[in-house]
Structure formats: C-alpha cells, structure tokens
C-alpha cells in the first residue's frame, strides 16, 4: 500500500484499528522492561539514586520536542497540501505534547531541587522548554478560540510553524549559552558520556515512551476523525429536521 493511500481517513481508521492494540501492548511491555532495568541500574557516582529521575525526564524532554516537530510537519501538510488528515494529526498531537512538556519540567524541577538546590532557574534550557509548553498551550487555546475548524486549523498551523524555531533553541541552548543545565550527554559529537549500564535502560525507556506517545496520538487521531464525521452527521440531522 502506497504511503499516500494511508493519507485517507477511512483507510487510516481501518489500519490504525488493527495496529493500535499491538502498538499499545508493545509500548507497555517496552516500558516495563525499561523500568525493570532502570531500577536495577547502579546509582550514579555524583547524583546517587536521584539518577532514576533521568530515565523519565530525558525521554519526556526528547518527546516534547519530537511531538512539536510532528506538529510542524503536520502544519506543512495543512498549509501546503491542505490535507484533512494533516489537520487531524496536528490537532491530536497538541494536548499529548503539552503533557510531555509539562512532565519534562516537573520531573526536571524534582531532580533539580536535591541536585542544584533549587526547583527552578531562568537558564536558557529551562526557559526554552517552558516556552515550548506555552506554545503547546497556546495552540490548544487558539483552536478553541476560533469557531470555524478550517480557520482554526490554518491559524494553529501558522503558529506551530513560527514556534518551531524554539525546538533547535531548546536542543542547542546548553551549547549556545552558559547554563546551569548540563550539556548533551547522549546525542553529542564524540559519542555518549553515559555508562552502558545506565544508557541502555534510558534508551529502552525512551523507546517505550515514544511508542506510548505514538499510540496515544493514533487513538486521538481516530477520535478526531470520528468527531468530524459526527459534526457532519449532526449538521445533516439538523438540516433534515428543519426541512421535515
């Protein structure tokens, strides 16, 4: 089946109906393995047991940025190809990305208090991640503020493309500015600086959370497609009642 064939709401519903249970099961199984390995991993020589927070904080940070990147791609689909499934994908991702960005900030603060002595500092990494959360919330607010769904979709697409400039700022803020937040330690030139005993559980947790995010997104997209069908059917029912 060609990729473009999938970009049809009816085909998407048929395929996702088959894939979603397996994707959800695989996500939960991967997370179970990841947490099992994470809680058996040794304590860090500097952070002690507090390093356990990193097994969720780091994936939340990656996925908050990944989710926003998917939003930006969907925004291109809305504005360039005007594809209805792109608008569905865009609308479905915003609340999910917002939760991941929120959890990144909360778990980071709970790690920061014992390690840095403070829940929050206005450094470039933390502030740009807060801006990312505010962008997600802004997209949700914008969609609910505009009554016409097509107009709301286009406005949200423009905002998400403009806001995408923040994603590389989040990623490279620790290189561009002097921050309290430590620099990249997994994806960096010269390889990871994390020992394999902690890197593997981290990567497995990250993979599990990625599958979970995709499963949630797929489920939310299915609901959004049905919601649009419901809107059409309700309008039709109202029109039939008016002419009866």
């Amino acid at each position, binding site marked *: 089946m060609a990729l473009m064939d999938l970009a049809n709401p009816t085909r998407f519903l048929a395929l996702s109906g088959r894939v979603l249970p397996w994707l959800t099961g695989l996500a939960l199984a991967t997370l179970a393995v990841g947490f099992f390995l994470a809680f058996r991993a040794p304590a860090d020589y500097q952070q002690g047991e507090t390093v*356990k927070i990193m097994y969720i904080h780091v994936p939340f940070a990656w996925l908050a940025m990944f989710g926003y990147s998917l939003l930006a791609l969907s925004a291109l689909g809305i504005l360039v190809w005007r594809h209805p499934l792109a608008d569905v994908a865009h609308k479905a991702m915003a609340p999910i990305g917002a939760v991941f960005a929120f959890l990144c900030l909360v778990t980071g603060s709970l790690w920061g208090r014992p390690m840095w002595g403070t829940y929050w500092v206005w450094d470039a990494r933390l502030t740009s991640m807060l801006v990312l959360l505010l962008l997600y919330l802004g997209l949700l607010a914008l969609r609910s503020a505009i009554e016409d769904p097509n107009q709301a979709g286009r406005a949200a697409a423009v905002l998400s493309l403009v806001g995408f400039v923040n994603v590389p700022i989040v990623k490279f803020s620790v290189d561009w500015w002097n921050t309290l937040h430590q620099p990249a330690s997994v994806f960096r030139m010269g390889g990871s600086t994390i020992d394999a005993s902690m890197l593997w559980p981290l990567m497995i947790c990250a993979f599990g959370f990625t599958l979970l995010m995709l499963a949630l997104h797929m489920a939310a997209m299915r609901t959004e497609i049905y919601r649009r069908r419901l809107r059409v059917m309700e309008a039709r029912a109202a029109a039939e009642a008016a002419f009866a």
Partner: protein
Amino acid sequence: MFGEHGLFIIASYGVSALALGALALWTVLDGRSVRRRLDELDSRGVRRRSAGRE
C-alpha cells in the same frame, strides 16, 4: 529505599504516572463518547453522504 532523595524520585514517577494515566483515560473516554453519539445518529438513520465507517 531510594536514599535521602527518595521522596523526589517517588514524586517524579507518581506525577508522571498520574498525568499519563489521566491523558490515556481522557483519550479513551473521549473516543467512546464520540463513537456512542455516532452510533446514536446511525441508529436514527442519519448517514454521511460517503458512509464508509469501519
């Protein structure tokens, strides 16, 4: 159990489980609600022009 900072670790995992659990629950309940309303309209004989629902 997790050393002197155990509360911070438990709070991190607890908040994450709560937030993701709430998100998953909302996703499922929202989906069910929309499907139920669609089925109600369907049972009243209201159809989309291109009826191709699963």
